[in-house]
């Protein structure tokens, strides 16, 4: 495995700038997730590293060597795509063995067999090796697709929303499996997704990307708890962060502050604080989302379990000073 370094990378398609001034350092053995909405430039960033696109400006290095001008095959990366493309007429075994049977590699069949079985066990599809690829469930197919990248020992794995086509339950399981496999292999992974849960649960560091620009690169707790700006603050959290104009809540804000950010789980309902009306209550089972109308703003609160509150009722809202985030008019977060 190896580290990856992007410096000042830019890529435009016609008038559309897909990636702009992108600096990104991925450490050896690190799991980095690029998180952003559709069209943010995530997939372009991956394709630039894979060599499927050439940057207009900037340098790309893998393992210390500049690969900016290298063709894809010389970069030694493995890519997993959103839509898994297996060879339908091959067995699972042959699908997994395919990358190892490349004429450039000349591996013995014994060694190929051993490696395929090792990866199949890791992915818990060892019982399916003789099945045709078409006789698999969606989750099994995606495991084979991931396995086909893992059988090789490339310097970097690039993954483009590999779990997005799977149903929710399977995604939950594969998320935790993929993280375990990455840790066991010590693999360097750059993974792109628009799913904040995937980003927070798997990443060592999350890169929040929007309009081709990297807004923040930090650990999940850092990005969630100390977002660089309002755009990052909004990208993570469900229900989303409350962004209120200064003055709605009593706060000792820094001079330049224009906006106060409060996570819904930090909103306390009860007998203290300012008056509010409960607009809507969503009992989600493990937690309850409450929509509140305050003088001058609406606010979401997240309460554990089944909250005993009713729509239409009056209540009071308080937020601990240490839970407040302050942002300047241009969106930058200010030190409290």
């Amino acid at each position, binding site marked *: 495995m190896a580290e990856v370094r992007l410096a000042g990378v830019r890529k435009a398609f016609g008038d559309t700038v897909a990636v702009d001034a992108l600096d990104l350092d991925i450490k050896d053995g690190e799991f980095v997730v690029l998180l952003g909405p559709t069209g943010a430039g995530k997939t372009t960033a991956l394709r630039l590293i894979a060599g499927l696109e050439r940057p207009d400006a900037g340098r790309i290095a893998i393992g210390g060597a500049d690969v900016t001008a290298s063709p894809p095959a010389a970069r030694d990366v493995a890519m997993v795509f959103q839509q898994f493309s297996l060879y339908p007429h091959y067995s699972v075994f042959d699908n997994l063995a395919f990358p190892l049977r490349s004429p450039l590699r000349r591996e013995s069949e014994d060694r190929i067999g051993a490696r395929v079985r090792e990866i199949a066990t890791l992915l818990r599809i060892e019982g399916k090796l003789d099945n045709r690829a078409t006789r698999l469930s969606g989750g099994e197919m995606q495991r084979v697709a991931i396995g086909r990248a893992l059988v090789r020992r490339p310097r970097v794995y690039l993954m483009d929303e590999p779990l997005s086509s799977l149903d929710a339950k399977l995604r*939950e399981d594969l*998320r935790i499996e993929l993280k*375990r496999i990455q840790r066991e292999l010590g693999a360097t992974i750059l993974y792109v997704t628009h799913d904040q849960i995937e980003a927070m649960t798997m990443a060592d560091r999350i890169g929040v990307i929007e309009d081709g620009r990297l807004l923040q690169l930090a650990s*999940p707790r850092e990005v969630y708890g100390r977002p660089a700006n309002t755009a990052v603050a909004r990208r993570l959290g469900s229900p989303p962060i409350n962004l209120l104009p200064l003055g709605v809540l009593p706060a000792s804000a820094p001079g330049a502050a224009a906006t106060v950010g409060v996570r819904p789980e930090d909103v306390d309902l009860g007998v203290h604080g300012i008056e509010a009306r409960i*607009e809507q209550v969503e*009992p*989600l089972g493990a*937690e309850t989302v409450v929509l509140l109308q305050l003088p001058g703003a609406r606010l979401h609160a997240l309460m554990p379990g*089944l909250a005993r509150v009713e729509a239409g009722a009056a209540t009071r809202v308080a937020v601990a000073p240490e839970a407040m985030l302050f942002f300047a008019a241009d969106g930058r977060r200010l030190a409290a």
Partner: protein
Amino acid sequence: MNVRRNIGFPLSAQGVPRAEILRRVEETAKLLRIDHLLNRAVGGLAGGDRQRVALGRAIVRRPKAFLMDEPLGTLDAAFRELMCEELRGLHDRIGATTVYVTHDQIEAMAMADVIAVMNKGLVLQSGTPFEIYHRPRSMFVAQFIGSPSMNFLPCAAGNRQAVSLAGRTVPVPELHEAAPGRLVLGVRPEHVRLSDDGVVRGEVFGVEYMGARQVVTVDTEAGRLRVRTSNTQRASIGEQVGLAFDPGQIILFDATSERALPSALFEREIAHG
């Protein structure tokens, strides 16, 4: 066609007089908070506003009932949450009967007065979100609603107030009928907590930080379990931990029929959670 003509279309197709169309389109647009967009072309609208226009076209006819087929399915997650709230608010204002189908349990829980869980053409259970979530009558319903889903652990019958789980006695809500030999203990991730004096012990397999919450996956002698905790709970992979169950919240299922066994839990009302 602009937004105004799009919303008015079902009425002009019915031959409603123009003045009446104008009035009802304005009224509908206000309700949906898109009255500032009436003269805009639909082509240039953001995804959510388009969805609001589509809703407007249904609402403007003043039907007796709305039938909605996954109207939020194509929207991204953050936006879906917002629209859920908006649809529920709209329903509260209009008061029209609505039947809404979805595969998304969060949408169902967030909006419904009554949820009917269906599988293979049958309604398996229908009830309030509370009943469906906290008092599921079958393993299918229990695992379908809730994320992460309910933990299921094979266990053996003890007396009416306890079961045997991996050789340990676990208290449960008092059963109202004799338990079959093979049982499944069901417990939601938020009703399990990490505790040194817990009934079962295991090794932490995964820790998933999710911002407001955290899910810890633990492999125990009784099986793999997910625990939902606050984001301040510290746990690391490989660590040995004890797990304690909230005894009042355990549901037992017959392992063969997958039916929930009636117990004291099913008598408790909402106020006791």
